[in-house]
């Protein structure tokens, strides 16, 4: 079946604007992660969804960042009042079953966000 998809592929916005990034996980995967990858850096955990449980939001860098997952499937990451330091590639990953530590994470191609 189809892999994880993300949209848009690239997003350029002006400082202070809000943006929404979308992630469509693999059908049937119950766990979903969002990561941020700044230029030349590793992956920074942002948020984790598992089924209908309360999400682990401990990685969100500020209250300008929020995410939701509707119907246990599609997820949207929203960044309000964007700042230049928000410029990065935002990666989404899903994994089957409980998203346990041994599960493979299947990644989307990411959204490159540029804040001018």
């Amino acid at each position, binding site marked *: 079946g189809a892999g994880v998809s993300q949209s848009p592929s690239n997003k350029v916005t002006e400082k202070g604007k809000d943006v929404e990034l979308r992630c469509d996980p693999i059908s049937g995967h119950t766990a979903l*992660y969002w990561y941020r990858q700044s230029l030349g*850096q*590793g992956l920074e955990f942002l948020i984790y969804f598992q089924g209908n449980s309360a999400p682990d939001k401990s990685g969100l860098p500020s209250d300008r960042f929020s995410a939701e997952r509707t119907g246990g499937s599609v997820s949207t990451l929203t960044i309000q009042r964007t700042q230049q330091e928000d410029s990065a590639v935002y990666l989404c990953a899903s994994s089957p079953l409980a998203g346990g*530590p041994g599960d493979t994470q299947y990644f989307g191609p990411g959204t490159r966000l540029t804040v001018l």
Partner: protein
Amino acid sequence: AQTVTQSQPEMSVQEAETVTLSCTYDTSESDYYLFWYKQPPSRQMILVIRQEAYKQQNATENRFSVNFQKAAKSFSLKISDSQLGDAAMYFCAYGRNYGQNFVFGPGTRLSVLP
């Protein structure tokens, strides 16, 4: 908190040769998983190999193998018979639990020279 270190920001290897990428991690846990992910210029992260900490045998996937030294908290990746398509960023990752307990290293950029 767990940390993952990759001390080689960049590596290069001649096509058909062997290269080893280093990874060390810090944890007080005894049961966990370790991963190597590959990220080519397309940005698509792909799992290369996975190791379960309770298994002493090193994982192998075709040309990719690991040297897992649990006591030393070391988890290196060996790529044999390197191919041009192996050129990518390689990330070492640690997984112990859900959410934030899945940690990635900063990555090693591998170049393959023809």
